């Protein structure tokens, strides 16, 4: 599914994300709420104003989970298994939102890593985030 080049691209880009998971994760969520305000429905209990501590901490969580999947591409089903359960049985996030957040994550990567986020890196990441989304929606029905 991933060529050796794609695996290398994902690893090298993610290495640069790791020191910034809280800031960039928070930013991805901030972009999600600004561009797609309907997504705020999942965060009614949380302060979604730009730069809020709650959103930064949640963004950190999301990016770290994505990072663990990125660290073991051949075993994503196992790595994401409990998150898959959570999204299906507890959170019931409409799967359309995974695409929206993936897009915002790609925007954050392009924004902060303009020279590294080449079209080939973009392709590898688009594939990767689509897999993550598919696994998270897998147990919905």
């Amino acid at each position, binding site marked *: 599914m991933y060529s050796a080049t794609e695996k290398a691209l994902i690893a090298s880009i993610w290495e640069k994300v790791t020191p910034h998971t809280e800031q960039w994760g928070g930013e991805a969520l901030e972009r999600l709420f*600004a*561009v797609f305000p309907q997504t705020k429905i999942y965060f009614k209990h949380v302060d979604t104003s*730009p730069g809020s501590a709650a959103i930064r901490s949640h963004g950190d969580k999301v990016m770290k989970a994505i990072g663990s999947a990125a660290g073991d591409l051949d075993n994503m089903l196992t790595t994401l298994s409990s998150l898959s359960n959570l999204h299906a049985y507890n959170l019931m996030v409409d799967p359309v939102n995974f695409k929206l957040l993936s897009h915002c994550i790609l925007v*954050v990567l*392009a*924004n902060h890593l303009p020279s590294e986020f080449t*079209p080939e890196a*973009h*392709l590898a990441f688009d594939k990767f985030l689509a897999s993550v989304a598919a696994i998270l929606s897998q147990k919905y029905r």
Partner: protein
Amino acid sequence: MVHWTDEERQAISSTWAEINVEEVGHQALARVLVVYPWTQRYFSTFGNVSNATAIAGNPKVRAHGKRVLDALGDAITHLDNVKATYAKLSQLHSEKLHVDPENFRLLGETLIISLAAQFGAVFTPDIQAAWQKLLAVVTAALSKQYY
């Protein structure tokens, strides 16, 4: 009739004033061809568009990217009437080019990503939101003459 706030108009025009039209157009189109390779089918007359290197160096891709961005400039000049401005373009894409409208959305996404890469921190969430709204309006206008 699309309602634009003053902030949205300002966000769009201030970004547009700084855009390198040829570069961003090329980036956005190249990314579509690389990230969604089935779109290469629409460009069989462009020569070699089969891999990232060929796409990056292909002068027809570059020229077409610029053409697309120039047309976007038209929409920006006529923000209050994009549908009418794009009526002929919409007809062209549906009757002659047979482009599935999903591809307008894909190009919109890669254009946002190309803008994020060019502008860095200046491309704030609110500016992104204004641009995504513009591209949604453009996509709707381009799809209008299909039925």
